[in-house]
């Protein structure tokens, strides 16, 4: 399940076999790799340090059981320690408290509070609740309008904040209104603020004092870097945090901030924002993010990217061609162009388990996958229509022409065609396995 990190570790830990136990020395490299992975994912420096120490402490001296490989042993320890921080299971808001359940949203500017407030309201509405959303961001221009619009979109009640009102007054009046209208959930959106902005933090304390919320949720952008620790610490100390929402997880950030915030607050991460639509809010799965942070082949986001670039018709057409052996060089070229649209090859390939590490190792001197693609494209461009439709037409003299036309060598053309055929065979097999087979293939990721 640990994808490319696992590959790397097994390589390193092969050496451990025969030693009998894990020692500080023989897991050094493995630890270094885990550390690097975590730092690259933006987990905070000291959180990483503590984590590595904890793993080391547990691992060193462990006997490598004959039945298990040292890799499995080590990975189990890493994963258990991660789970310890991240919390094992998805957390859920308890809404069975005496109504109204009051939820206060807070966080830095631009972290996604307003959008999340709308999403959460929609979700709760779907669970049969009658939420009232309260715009109490009196700082950012048009923030009140934004929440009012969003509330209209998702069809929930919105407190009618008037220009010039102060946040604490809004809180008071909104609570009274919620009581009158029999709303069972109150969601209060607040202005984004820096934890070092003492005035605004004081305002937030005051709002919290009035609301006496059941849940004070910190909204954290998944792309946040090292600052996540400062933010979590300050909001925790100055306001108090009952839970966290991670936003913008539909991007390709590794989301190390989640680990940092958990380590600091210990508060559960309840939800993950995964898009701009109001439905795009999910329960947060700690194990998934743990894998993502560790940089294991991110097949999920690869699939997401793919499904954005392709429409169903195209995908089906390709699959059919693959199955029936009709996949031509022309199709191949089209596919390459589609994939190019999805992003640069290097990062795409990095998402395939086992490839990430290989790509990194290649560094700058190895063949650049994107350039490689362009060369291939050049070769195909130099072929005639007939040749593209039937690669078997390409005899010696034709290959020579293609090589000349594309600025490559005959050997390169040969090797490309050979691999094209071989790969076609393999893809045919994979395609025949269908979704079930694919699913099997991905189960391990």
């Amino acid at each position, binding site marked *: 399940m640990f994808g*490319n990190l696992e*590959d790397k570790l097994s*390589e390193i830990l092969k050496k451990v076999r025969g030693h009998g136990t894990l020692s500080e020395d023989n897991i050094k490299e493995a630890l270094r790799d885990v550390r690097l992975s975590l730092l*690259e994912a*933006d987990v905070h*420096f000291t959180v990483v340090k503590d984590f590595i120490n904890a793993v080391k402490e547990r691992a060193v001296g462990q006997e490598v059981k004959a039945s298990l490989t040292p890799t499995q042993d080590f990975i189990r320890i890493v994963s258990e320690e991660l789970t310890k921080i991240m919390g094992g299971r998805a957390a859920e808001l308890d809404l069975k408290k005496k109504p109204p359940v009051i939820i206060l949203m807070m966080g*830095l*500017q*631009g972290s*996604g509070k307003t959008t999340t407030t709308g999403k959460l309201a929609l979700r709760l509405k779907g669970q049969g609740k009658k939420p009232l959303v309260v715009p109490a961001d009196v700082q950012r*221009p*048009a923030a009140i*309008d*934004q929440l*009012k619009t*969003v509330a209209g979109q998702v069809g929930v009640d919105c407190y009618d904040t008037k220009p010039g009102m102060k946040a604490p007054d809004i809180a008071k009046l909104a609570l009274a209104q919620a009581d009158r209208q029999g709303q069972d959930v109150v969601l209060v959106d607040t202005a984004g603020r*820096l934890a*070092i902005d003492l005035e605004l933090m004081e305002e937030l304390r005051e709002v919290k004092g009035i609301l006496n919320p059941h849940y004070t949720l910190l909204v954290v952008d998944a792309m946040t*870097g*090292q*600052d996540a620790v400062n*933010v979590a610490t300050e909001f925790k100390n100055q306001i108090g945090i009952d839970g966290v929402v991670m936003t913008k997880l*539909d*991007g*390709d*950030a*590794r989301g190390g*901030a989640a680990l940092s915030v958990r380590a600091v607050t210990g508060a559960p991460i309840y939800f993950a924002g995964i898009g*701009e639509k109001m439905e795009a809010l999910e329960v947060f799965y700690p194990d998934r993010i743990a894998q993502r942070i560790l940089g294991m082949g991110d097949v999920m986001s690869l699939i997401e*990217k793919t499904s*954005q670039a*392709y429409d169903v018709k195209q995908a089906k*057409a390709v*699959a059919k061609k693959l199955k029936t052996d009709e996949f031509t060089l022309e199709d191949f070229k089209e*596919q390459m162009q*589609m*994939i190019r*649209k*999805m992003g640069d090859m290097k*990062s795409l*390939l990095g998402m*395939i*388990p*086992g*490839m990430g590490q*290989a790509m*990194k*190792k*290649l560094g*700058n*001197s190895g*063949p650049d*996958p994107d350039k490689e693609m362009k060369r291939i494209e050049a070769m195909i461009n130099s072929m005639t229509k007939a040749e593209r439709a039937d690669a078997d037409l390409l005899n010696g003299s034709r290959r020579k022409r293609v090589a000349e036309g594309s600025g490559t060598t005959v050997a390169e053309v040969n090797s490309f065609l050979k691999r094209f055929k071989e*790969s076609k065979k393999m*893809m045919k097999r*994979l*395609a025949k396995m269908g979704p079930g*087979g694919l*699913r099997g293939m*991905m189960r391990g990721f």
Partner: protein
Amino acid sequence: MDIGTLIFAGGGLIFLVFVALFIRKQTQRRLPAPGVDPEKVLADHAGKDSADLDPFRDEADVPVPPAEAAPKQSLSAGLAKTKTGFMAKLNAVIFGRGLDEGLVDELEALLVTSDIGIRTAEKLLEGLKQDLSKQELKDPAAVKKRLEEKIRGIVAQKVAPLALDKGPTVLMVIGVNGVGKTTTIGKLAARYTQEGKKVVLAAGDTFRAAAVQQLEIWGERAGCVVVKGPNEADPASVIFEAIQKAKAEKADLCICDTAGRLHTKVNLMEELKKLKRVMNKAHEGAPHEVLLVLDATTGQNAITQARQFKEAVEVSSLALTKLDGTAKGGVVVAICDELGLPVRYIGIGEKVDDLRDFNADEFVGALFEET
């Protein structure tokens, strides 16, 4: 995940795997590759015999040597390769030459916690040993000074002030959600209006709720015209109209707001390309500047953002916002280094005058400030 999504993605994924294997193969032939074997990984996951599934395995295949056996790389040969055993190497080389291990740790902590990123941090620290004499390496002050100079050298990219002679100069402002695009536009509008320039704003974010109103309020603050479309208008037509208006009114500057978008969203990036084309149609040579807004609180993902936006619409400069917080925005060091994009502006608050020109000295000073 449901079957539908799987079918949906299936064709593409298969193909991608194919390309992966293909390129991996090429790689193997040219370079002693690391001990990872994606063919095997895939085969294992498919629950198939790997030999059966691997059409590439032929006698021409050289066995893959373990990672340690890779040839020694030259120091400048790229960051990626410094990865394995860097600290060991660093300790062996720098430490052996007298750089205190505690100092290395301290500097690494400083660089990493400012979001410079472990790779760039390692690269910078490694550079020190080439630059400094044995004697200097023992002196923490000298080491720090050299490090500061190095970073300053990277971020201090010359950038001419925005030329306002394009009748009008068109500035396209882009970035992921919530980084501060609209706010930065508001501040810029105010600045140039105060300088006596005529500014037109284009409300090109027609997607997010109340984004237009937000820009209108900024327009009022700055005292400039805001061109907007009807509800749910097409951003391209709003921008086209705004540039037309700017031309007709002989404005000096037309700043185009765009909806925040993650760089991973294919269609939205395509839309951005289209917007850019439309700008050029409205006014030849436009946009004259493509400003990517980055949030200083963002970590390593900002590198990917910059790379993808640059590839899509040829970003010309950066604005780094929210530097009034505790985040240092160190990731721009890597971005300047890798992508050669200059930082033009910084945001230091939410008020209309909280915009500054980027200053490398100040930036580096803040990085090394004790917090």
